[in-house]
């Protein structure tokens, strides 16, 4: 790893994003619009006794979902473009290390994910009066770690797609099972044993648990930190796997 090259690469990726105003607008606006829908969907639903309001429960988890879904898609396409336009091949003939490239994406899109989560949190807390026992800063932190995980998974999956059509298809494969089994729709404890076992190995389950910890406890809990560490560890593992897909020599 070379700090100068890593910084140049991170800057380059952010500059590419900056030139794409429409993407930035979508990144920022879409979560707010979806939160608005969810707010009005549940506005007239009664709150179950002794439980958080349905909107609080759903919106909190959604704040973690947005960066995960969007950064996975954005990264898979961006990395696929590097592969198909020849920029990756050129980069691999230069002193740039694989880690410089992968971490550059992790940092750049991690920041974009954090920005997205911040705007969505502002909307959720200020406009829709989202209530969590813990602080919103922890919610944004967890969302940002989630974004880095999504970037790492996107970098890895892009190696298995030859076209943008294929890359987009990896979204339901990688993201949908994690959304379904993360505990939002059915609490993990109430799932059949084999579903729980699958849920246990999916990193998003831990991100959702961490968010729920912030929702229920005023102070950060040990479980929350453990969950954040698991998500971060999964991100590192995915980055290592992604590095293994980058070959300087090809056929």
């Amino acid at each position: 790893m070379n700090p100068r090259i890593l910084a140049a690469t991170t800057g380059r990726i952010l500059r590419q994003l900056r030139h794409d105003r429409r993407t930035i607008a979508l990144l920022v606006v879409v979560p707010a619009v979806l939160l608005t829908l969810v707010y009005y969907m549940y506005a007239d639903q009664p709150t179950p006794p002794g439980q958080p309001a349905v909107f609080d429960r759903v919106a909190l988890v959604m704040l973690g979902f947005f960066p995960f879904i969007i950064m996975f898609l954005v990264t898979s396409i961006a990395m696929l473009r590097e592969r198909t336009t020849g920029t990756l091949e050129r980069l691999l003939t230069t002193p740039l290390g694989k880690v410089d490239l992968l971490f550059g994406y992790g940092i750049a899109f991690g920041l974009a994910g954090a920005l997205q989560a911040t705007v969505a949190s502002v909307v959720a807390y200020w406009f829709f009066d989202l209530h969590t026992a813990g602080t919103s800063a922890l919610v944004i932190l967890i969302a940002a770690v989630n974004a880095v995980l999504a970037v790492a998974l996107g970098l890895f999956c892009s190696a298995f797609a030859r076209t943008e059509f294929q890359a987009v298809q990896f979204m339901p494969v990688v993201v949908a099972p994690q959304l379904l089994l993360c505990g939002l729709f059915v609490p993990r404890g109430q799932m059949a044993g084999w579903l729980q076992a699958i849920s246990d190995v999916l990193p998003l389950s831990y991100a959702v648990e961490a968010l729920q910890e912030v929702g229920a406890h005023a102070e950060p809990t040990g479980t929350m930190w453990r969950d954040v560490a698991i998500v971060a560890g999964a991100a590192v593992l995915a980055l290592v796997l992604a590095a293994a897909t980058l070959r300087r020599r090809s056929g």
Partner: protein
Amino acid sequence: MDDAIAVRDLVVDRGRRRVLDGISCTVRRGVVTGLLGPSGSGKTTLMRAVVGVQVIAGGSVTVLGRPAGSPALRRQVGYLTQAPSVYADLTVRENARYFAAIQGCGRAEADQAVADVGLAGAATQLVGTLSGGQRSRASLACALVGGPELVILDEPTVGQDPVLRADLWARFHEMAAAGTTLLVSSHVMDEAARCDRLLLIREGRLIADDTPDAVRAAAGVDDLDEAFLRLIRANEAGPTGDAGREAS
């Protein structure tokens, strides 16, 4: 060590097809060597082997005294891919500055590289909005930034108007005069005459390795296009067929 590149018995397979079939050749330092041959003859594959991104099935490629693809070479070799490999969503200047930063060069060197390919006026334009010829020059600027010792250019003049083409070739010769080694591929024979030395490949085999004048003399005609045709026919007719190696 007079040779910048030494290729020995290089064999490359892509899929089931043998793309390079036992090529041996050398590229001298400080001159412009043209790599010529019809489309699909293996020019790009040979260049990829030289920059060390091609998996090879046999033989060896030595570049500036080291095996091709050695980490130390990544600062010394500039590579222009055939399709322009620059970021369409960055400006020309941003592209050049990024590749300059990777090579450890500053902004001034990046801006100089952009000016050298005649794109100073379009420096702040997004690459995606450029014409095909401008885009490939933007890509060229990124390959030349930082003044690499060896420059591998895969069809750098495709889509350029005649004036710009002449300018680019003049620039290549200036670089060679300053000590840079250039390997430039083309499938246009009129560019062959501009090279100091020529490598002609066809169907994965080397059929000439000489100066343009020696190639003309060996074939007995003045026109290089015609000379290559004769060499190819002689090569196909002959049992061992290695007119080029005999000529050199």
